């Protein structure tokens, strides 16, 4: 399988994605990897079973434009990258921008500990309804016996 990776500037991403779409390419995936410079993003496009990849480096405090205007279905990967890596993906199509609620995880993401890294703003907004999942922010209720022991009996002195 040919491995074609084209280094690209973040400012050129939309233009190149539009070009791929015009030429009949299908987007196969977006890959995000943490690297020393920040985030390494790889956008893969397929035509006739040959894959072409665009490679971007986004600084740790940077952001990247969404490609949902060209490939609507990229919202799955863009929401995932936002929720798991904390990268700010700007202007995801509004009807599919889940604002950090796509990946429900008990532990806030990202897992990597970087000195200057910020937790994804939206990821901390995730509030699962009780009974529908694990919500790490909710402390388990005290057992009835412990609660009774902690509370003074009514009518006591």
């Amino acid at each position: 399988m040919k491995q074609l990776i084209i280094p690209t500037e973040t400012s050129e991403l939309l233009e190149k994605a539009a070009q791929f779409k015009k030429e009949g390419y299908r987007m196969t995936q977006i890959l995000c990897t943490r690297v020393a410079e920040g985030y390494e993003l790889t956008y893969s496009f397929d035509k006739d079973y040959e894959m072409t990849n665009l490679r971007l480096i986004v600084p740790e405090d940077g952001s990247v434009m969404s490609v949902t205007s060209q490939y609507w279905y990229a919202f799955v990967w863009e929401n995932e990258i936002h929720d798991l890596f904390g990268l700010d993906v700007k202007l995801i199509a509004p009807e599919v921008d889940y604002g950090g609620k796509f990946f429900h995880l008990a532990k806030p993401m990202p897992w990597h500990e970087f000195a200057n890294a910020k937790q994804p703003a939206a990821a901390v907004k995730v509030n699962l309804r009780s009974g529908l999942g694990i919500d790490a922010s909710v402390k388990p209720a005290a057992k009835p016996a412990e609660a009774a022991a902690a509370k003074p009996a009514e009518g006591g002195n």
Partner: protein
Amino acid sequence: MGKSTVVPFGPQHPVLPEPIHLDLELQDEKVVKAIPSIGYIHRGLEKLVEKRGFQEYVYVAERVCGICSFGHGWGYSKAIEGLMGIEVPRRAEYLRTIWHEISRLHSHLLWAGLGADALGFESLFMQCWRIRETILDIIEQTTGGRVIFSVCKVGGVRRDIPDNELKEIVARLDKLKKEIDEVATIFLNDETIHARLKGVGTVSYDDAVALGCVGPTARASGVPQDYRMGDEGGAYKDLGFTPVLATEGDCFARAKVRLLELYQSMDIIKGCVENMPAGDIAVPVKGFPPAAEYFTRVEQPRGEAVYYVKGNKTKNLERFRLRTPTNANIAVLVKMLQGCDLADVPNIILTIDPCISCCER
């Protein structure tokens, strides 16, 4: 038109074999919007590649999912072989193809059972899973395992299948074909199944292309997209391959494509047995993966899966990424659910054959 109501669907639901949650916004009985959320079965398996040796990680890759287990082991091994420039013996490629197609039979029969169960057709569910037992018996006979069988490794396969056993498998599949005929006839001709699946969750050819569908979901809309056509690994190129297609694009077409693929998989297995090359089943793997990266793909039962590996001249990889077919089909699911009846939601979800373990890794 009534006011909007939000109905939570999942993560635990009778038709869902695995947990996914959908917030369904309804107006009367019609779904106007579906908002998916996942993460209930996320295990961080991609991250584990930093802690396990690159050869040992095949076992982890196989455990991404129980149904596509062999395919994930194969996809990961293929990616490492591409990265390290390892040429796999032809016999190993043919054996891999046999096990992969047996896994497809296993997966599609499992799906057929679940689909029948979702329709309330319990006896059909039981028959599909009874037939599937024979497939699991063949897997056990040839590998020692039934669902996760760890027979693929970097550089080839761990076990050979003797020629007499290969002939026996073909004989068993011939017998099984008659049993599959019976369940397929019911699926394809039963009026109740037609009433529940025909014209439901329809995706046109243009929409399937625009939504990046993969696997039987794309092929049911007439999109001739199957990585087995372009796969340089396995025996597909030698045997010749044409995908099974339907044009209706509805739930019934997706069921039909999977049922017809059962016959295709049996034919591929027979083709492999008839043309099985002699020789080694594996080559020794020396050294560590170089500081480079490699993409490869495998056509899993649910569609195309993309594998990516990045080495760093050590025993451990720097990055492993898997884009699974369900991950690619979530977008079409969101679109299909818009405008459908609430009662059709389970069937629409099931006909993309969602594998949430794969999707979340």
